[in-house]
């Protein structure tokens, strides 16, 4: 798993690399092809149904061959990070899930987790297990949206309806827990915003019993489907060294044969206490990435079941830390306790303070390593917030994956990198 020896000044990063030179993210049309005068420059996107949002690709076509490619991003830039600097710590939380509107709970957790790391705050076990459960449900949700839309783009329309059938069940579970189907804002600094509602566990169990059958359905539709195989096998190749050099993570890296998962390498929440496998496939093509997604959904269902086993015995336990400097006091105390009222007032109006310092906190989101850097000056607002968006990094691999590709493969390749443009542009 080690990268080959470097060259320090000129030439490609290392021997055998397919990463374009000198700009790693821009594929240039070779001069001899350019000289034929038959190269056509096509603007793909930003408004195109298969760009997963507003991605613009400037593509040089020589017949059906893609000879040059440059990705243009920024159409969804909304300045989340700047806005968060002007909100108190806990009012900044709702910004995070809106970056990646498909795996929102992961984004929400990475920010909350970073603040907790800076505060050195301990979370009650019930919140730890519930967070783990929701992150895994969210992972299944994200993979379902991915497989539904990516297969749709390659012509497998029925896949979309199957995937969105189960997605609906997950959204119902989120609604049951938090009252919202998306952007739940259920994670609070210190734990959960509210207790887990009665009736959630049986519903979640029902889903866990059903989901493996649904994944079987998907696999029946695609895994040995001749059209699907021809569109995905050997397409969009990315080697181990290239993937690591380009900072790829998540299913893209595991589809290139590295069994790297932040949940295993640096366990957070309850991941060191649950049993799960990290699937990886060595082929490095679109099909391998598809297989990783499928296998991961099965593992996630297993994790959700293990979380339910624990949570069902935690009735009545606290769901949020008892630190009055950070956590809102229970509502009923406000009528009887002056101190609680003061704490409530201070936290709501001024916000809690986070000690001076900086941390980087990374988790395994459905798209790969999702990191959050927060810097505090000791005041009630963040000094700087920065998200390491896995989609942003994944898009850098388009030029490498697209080497020697056909125009039709482009859709499959961009889809397989599983990007969400909201997170790319932030």
């Amino acid at each position, binding site marked *: *798993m*080690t*990268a080959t*020896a*470097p060259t*320090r000044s000129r030439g490609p*990063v290392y021997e055998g690399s397919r*990463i374009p030179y*000198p*700009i*790693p*993210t*821009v594929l240039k049309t070779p001069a001899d092809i350019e000289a034929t005068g038959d190269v056509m420059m096509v603007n793909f996107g930003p408004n195109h149904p298969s760009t997963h949002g507003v991605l613009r690709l400037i593509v040089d076509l020589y017949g059906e061959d893609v000879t040059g490619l440059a990705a243009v*991003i*920024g159409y969804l*830039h909304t*300045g989340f*990070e*700047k*806005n968060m600097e*002007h909100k*108190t710590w806990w009012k900044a939380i709702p910004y995070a899930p809106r970056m990646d509107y498909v795996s929102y709970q992961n984004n929400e957790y990475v920010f909350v987790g970073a603040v907790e*790391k*800076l505060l050195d705050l301990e979370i009650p076990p019930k919140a730890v297990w519930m967070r783990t459960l929701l992150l895994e449900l969210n992972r299944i949700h994200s993979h379902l949206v991915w497989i539904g839309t990516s297969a749709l783009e390659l012509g497998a329309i029925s896949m979309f309806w199957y995937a969105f059938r189960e997605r609906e069940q997950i959204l119902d579970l989120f609604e049951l827990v938090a009252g919202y189907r998306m952007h739940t804002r259920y994670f609070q600094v210190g734990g959960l915003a509210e207790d887990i509602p009665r009736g959630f566990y049986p519903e979640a169990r029902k889903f866990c019993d059903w989901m493996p059958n649904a994944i079987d359905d998907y696999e029946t539709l695609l895994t040995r489907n001749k059209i699907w195989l021809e569109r995905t096998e050997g397409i969009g190749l990315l080697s181990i060294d290239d993937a*690591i*050099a*380009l*900072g790829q993570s998540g299913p893209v*890296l595991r589809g290139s044969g*590295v069994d*790297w998962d932040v949940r295993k*390498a*640096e366990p957070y929440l309850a991941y060191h206490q649950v049993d799960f496998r990290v699937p990886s496939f060595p082929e490095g093509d679109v099909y391998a990435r598809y297989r990783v997604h499928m296998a991961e959904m099965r593992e996630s269902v297993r994790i959700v079941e293990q979380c339910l086993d624990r949570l069902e015995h935690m009735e009545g336990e606290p769901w949020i830390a008892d630190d009055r400097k950070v956590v809102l006091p229970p509502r009923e105390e406000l009528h009887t306790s002056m101190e609680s009222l003061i704490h409530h007032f201070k936290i709501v*109006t*001024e*916000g809690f*303070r986070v000690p*001076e*310092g*900086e*941390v*980087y906190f*990374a988790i395994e989101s459905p798209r790969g*390593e999702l*990191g959050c*850097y927060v*810097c505090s*000056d*000791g*005041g*009630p607002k963040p*000094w*700087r917030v*920065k998200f*390491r968006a896995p989609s942003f*990094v994944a*898009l*850098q691999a388009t030029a490498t994956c697209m080497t020697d590709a056909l125009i039709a493969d482009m859709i499959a390749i961009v889809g397989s990198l599983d990007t969400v443009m909201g997170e790319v*542009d*932030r």
Partner: protein
Amino acid sequence: MSEFDALPGLVDQLERHRETTLVVELVSLVDAALHLRDEAGFNFLSDLTAIDYLGWGEKEVSGYIGTAAGRDLNMPMTQGYQVVPLPKPKRFALNYHLLSVSDRPRRIRLQTWADEGEPVPTVIRVWPTADWHEREQFDLMGIVFDGHPNLQRILLDDDWDGHPLRKDYPLGGEPVRFSGEA
């Protein structure tokens, strides 16, 4: 004694919040990056973050509500500190969050400091993934990366004025392009 003593241009090694930060001289950034990649196994650049420390620690100390000019209605909170934070050596800090994708996973923060307009050497030859990360920090923070082959704005328009994540760039209130134009 630590394993990073041989790091080129090492200024300081800090252990805070269960994280290791290695502060290096700006001129030896690329040498330090190569050393960390090839000797210490940090083959993966997770993230690059630039921070603007303009005005760091200049707000009033906590508990002081209002100013001589009265309370600012747009900022109804006590904005101050309980402890005034330590001063910083230069205006901008650059944090390279490195990761070792191997059987022995670990993380490290490589930190260097730059003043306004001071060019920072690019690490694109060390970790190609730095390409867009550096373009983003150029775009939003105005850090100039020396030797970057394609240093253009990435998230904002090419003709955008200013660098929004700088502390002297206001939140909102930017000129509206088409309104009132003849």
